[in-house]
């Protein structure tokens, strides 16, 4: 665990309020997450109790406007909290982050009525949210979605199956996208709020995963699922627009999971390298080991700087947010994969064993390069943005 009294970190000029968020999130991580993470991972158990602690500390409302019972913060505030949680466990941090992912579509495009009703429930942590985009034939290519919504009288009727949805089965509020008019192509999809108790709505079995095993991942199954017409998020046909805006806002959060995870792995690696004696010396005295650690530290701090700068750009109403949002996601999550793998290397055989936390860190890192758009897709986004910028 990093002892920030000892470790020199760069001064990012946090406000008093931002430092408060860091302190509260860190305390939860140290006192509640770290003591339980190995057991929750081993048992693939959903972290209900820890999410309740986060709720009690007002963290579920971090990014939600005060008028809806939140703290009124932005993307950067989420980044700060998620970084701390990820130092403890990316699985638990993912469960927390996925609720925001489910809330963003309503915040971004929802009617005031939807916001008035759902935001206070999500802000207080009383209800968890989730986000349903992916389907069996629609991963990177969102245009492949087959779930449909048809307006019958004053109800929408949904049919189809969403797959690998984080928090599915544990959340109560789902923002999902469905085709409302296939002929309209990119303008043919719309987003809806579905509730746990809606008729015709059920879940598939819980997936067994490589990492983030404290998070839950299931299918959402819609069989003539009927919801009131008022649950349409925004105007009909704006589904893909809302999804893109949502992901622009959420990706720096995934990036900060990479930063927190990378920090935790570096902390473990340096601490171990100072203690482990081989050939009569602590292994940190070998330059080959020092260089691995140095590279870890360089990549980590560079990633943190890019994530913070991107989140601040977004919060300050910067334009073309997709590019920085994608850039920081790629950099910080590729870094996390590399740094956690290096941490296992530094710990050698001990690193490979479950008694030490780094094997879990390495398993947890992989998902960050895949979900919320694979890192290949992020590079596509960045490439397209460059092409556009240089055509102006």
């Amino acid at each position: 665990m990093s002892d920030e009294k000892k470790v020199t970190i760069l001064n990012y000029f946090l406000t008093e309020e931002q430092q408060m968020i860091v302190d509260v999130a860190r305390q939860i991580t140290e006192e509640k997450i770290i003591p339980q993470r190995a057991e929750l991972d081993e048992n693939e158990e959903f972290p209900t109790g820890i999410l309740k602690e986060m709720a009690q500390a007002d963290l579920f409302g971090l990014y939600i406007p005060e008028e809806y019972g939140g703290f009124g913060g932005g993307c950067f505030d989420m980044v700060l909290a998620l970084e701390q949680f990820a130092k403890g466990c990316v699985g638990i941090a993912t469960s927390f982050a996925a609720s925001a992912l489910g809330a963003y579509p309503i915040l971004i495009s929802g009617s005031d009525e939807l916001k008035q009703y759902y935001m206070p429930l999500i802000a207080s942590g009383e209800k968890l949210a989730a986000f349903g985009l992916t389907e069996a034939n629609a991963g990177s290519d969102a245009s492949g979605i087959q779930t449909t919504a048809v307006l019958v009288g004053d109800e929408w009727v949904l049919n189809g199956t969403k797959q690998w949805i984080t928090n599915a089965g544990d959340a109560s509020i789902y923002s999902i996208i469905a085709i409302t008019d296939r002929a309209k192509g990119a303008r043919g999809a719309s987003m809806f709020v579905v509730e746990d108790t809606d008729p015709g709505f059920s879940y598939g079995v819980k997936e067994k995963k490589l990492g983030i095993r404290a998070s839950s991942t299931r299918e959402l199954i819609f069989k003539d699922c009927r919801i009131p017409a008022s649950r349409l998020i925004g105007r009909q046909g704006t589904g893909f627009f809302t999804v893109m805006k949502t992901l622009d806002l959420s990706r720096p959060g995934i990036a900060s999971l990479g930063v927190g995870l990378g920090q935790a792995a570096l902390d473990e690696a340096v601490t171990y390298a100072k203690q482990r004696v081989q050939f009569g010396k602590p292994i940190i005295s070998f330059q080959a080991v020092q260089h691995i650690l140095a590279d870890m530290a360089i990549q980590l701090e560079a990633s943190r700087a890019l994530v913070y700068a991107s989140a601040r750009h977004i919060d300050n109403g910067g334009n073309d947010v997709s590019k920085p949002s994608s850039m920081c996601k790629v950099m910080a999550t590729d870094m996390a994969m590399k740094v956690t793998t290096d941490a296992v290397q530094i710990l050698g055989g001990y690193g490979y064993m479950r008694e030490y936390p780094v094997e879990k860190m390495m398993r947890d890192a992989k998902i960050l390069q895949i979900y919320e758009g694979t890192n290949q897709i992020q590079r596509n986004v960045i490439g397209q943005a460059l092409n556009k910028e240089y055509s102006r």
Partner: protein
Amino acid sequence: MKIIVCVKQVPDAKDVRLDPKTNTLAREGVQSIMNPFDRYALEEGVRLKELYGGTVTVVTMGPPQAAEVLRDAVSCGADDAVLVSDRAFAGADTWATTYTLSQAIRKLGSFDLVICGKQAIDGDTAQVGPGLAQRLDIPYTAFARKVLGCADGIIRLERMMDDGYDEVEMNMPALLTVVKDINEPRVPSLKGKMKAKKLQVVVMSAADIDADPECLGLKGSTTQVVRVFSPEFKAEREMLVGTVDQQVEQLFSKLEPLL
């Protein structure tokens, strides 16, 4: 329900040392914290408030810097904070402490419940809770490990005993002191921290609580600490050597005759 929680600022146990020359606590550079048991007292107060409505007021007697523990308490859910502070209170023993606290609490008006920690980790007497109840002339239960419920002016709870627990009922207003089994204290909340930052701590002096000067501080104390010292380590010791199995065997043969 109006709930009063008594909290004490204590030196962090990790840092405590006695100055070998003066035999007093070496307080320089020692971090001050909320007495750990008082965190559980506060949490129980906040939970009862959440369950039954009302307010939680934290009270501490101490020097001006004890306001820090009050802010800490507010960030964890307390509504108001009162610092009972005056040079005249210095050197108080538990007799004078309970007098001072009881005078302050009377000034706060009517209340339903006073909650204290089981004991303070520095003074360690565990007398303040029970003593305070006597002064306020209300029933008390020490070592509460669970509150079963409050209804019709009666609080029901479980009191931890060496060999199990008692179920106890008291008429309110009442006082309890709590053990750590009673709950799992929460971490501070963001809104709590914001509130704590802006908090105006109410300070009550000897005059504010209508105290009789003869009953305060050193003057009002019926006991005095004559000497504080680290016990000298005189016990003979012997190191057992060999493999773990051999050491266990040696230890066993030494202990066996004593059983």
